[in-house]
């Protein structure tokens, strides 16, 4: 499986606007958004703004960096294999 990231601005209704669309083998799998300075201890981290299919979560996680986020998404998608 190959993940591809595409920078995007996301209208979250907050200061968290910089994000990435995450495609898995060409399919949109997730939207990651970087948390703004308003989040204090979470600032700079990446939030699973949306996940589709196996990547959806009732408790969307926050990741320290994009690599960790991608590892998590890959693990989720691996359950389909």
């Amino acid at each position, binding site marked *: 499986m190959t993940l591809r990231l595409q920078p995007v601005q996301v209208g979250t*209704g*907050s200061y968290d606007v910089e994000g990435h669309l995450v495609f898995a083998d060409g399919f949109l799998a997730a939207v990651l958004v970087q948390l703004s300075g*308003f989040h204090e201890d979470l600032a700079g981290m990446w939030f699973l703004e949306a996940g589709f299919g196996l990547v959806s979560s009732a408790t*969307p996680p926050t990741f320290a960096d994009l690599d960790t986020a991608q590892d998590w998404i890959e693990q989720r998608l691996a359950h389909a294999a």
Partner: protein
Amino acid sequence: MHPVSAQPTLGMLIRKLESIATLSNAERQAIQSLPVRIQNLRARQDIVRDGDQPTHCCLILDGWACRYKMLSEGKRQILSFHVSGDVLNLQSLHVPTMDHSIATLTKAVIAFIPHETLRELTASHPGLAAAFWRDTLIDAAVFREWLVSMGRRTSFEHVAHLFCELYLKLQSVGLAGDHRCPLPITQTDIADALGLTPVHINRVLQEMRGRTLITLRGRMLVMEAWDELLRVSEFDPTYLQLEKRAAG
């Protein structure tokens, strides 16, 4: 832990019951003379655990507590918030096995009332039995309202609804007024109660501040626009059944 009787602190229970029912002098005195064991607990300490068969009911004299369930991977769902005067597990008097856990959220003072004593109290004072029953029925009404919020309110409406509920509950027992109330819980606690994430809660609080609906000073929540919070969350206080209703 030490046994104490005729604690003036049991006045919190009287105040709570009087917020939802009318008590006679005899009923008030019967509560005052309940033998209780008082314990000081740290913040985030379990009081009763899922699966336990408690022999006491726990009354909060000071501090905040919650009911909660744990799922795998540390996922916690907070089921309700409780403040001074609330009896946390009145259900255990008639439903022996706990189907959820109870923990403190802040430092707390808890009075443990033996089941046997409460059974005697309610047998000799049917008015108090009715008041306790009413309390558990209102408890169920709060759960229904939380279910509506969980399923059908946006995160913004949901937080607004919770704030309105907490304020009125605290106000009814004299712990809040002038549209300001203590809020000694974290954004993670609120997220775990509302089925959201701390990220969502932080965004909602930012927006509420931006629209001057609330201010948060330290651990004090000030509802700057009470009517607007009621309106956006479609808050109808009927379900709290407060005797001395003061929603304004």
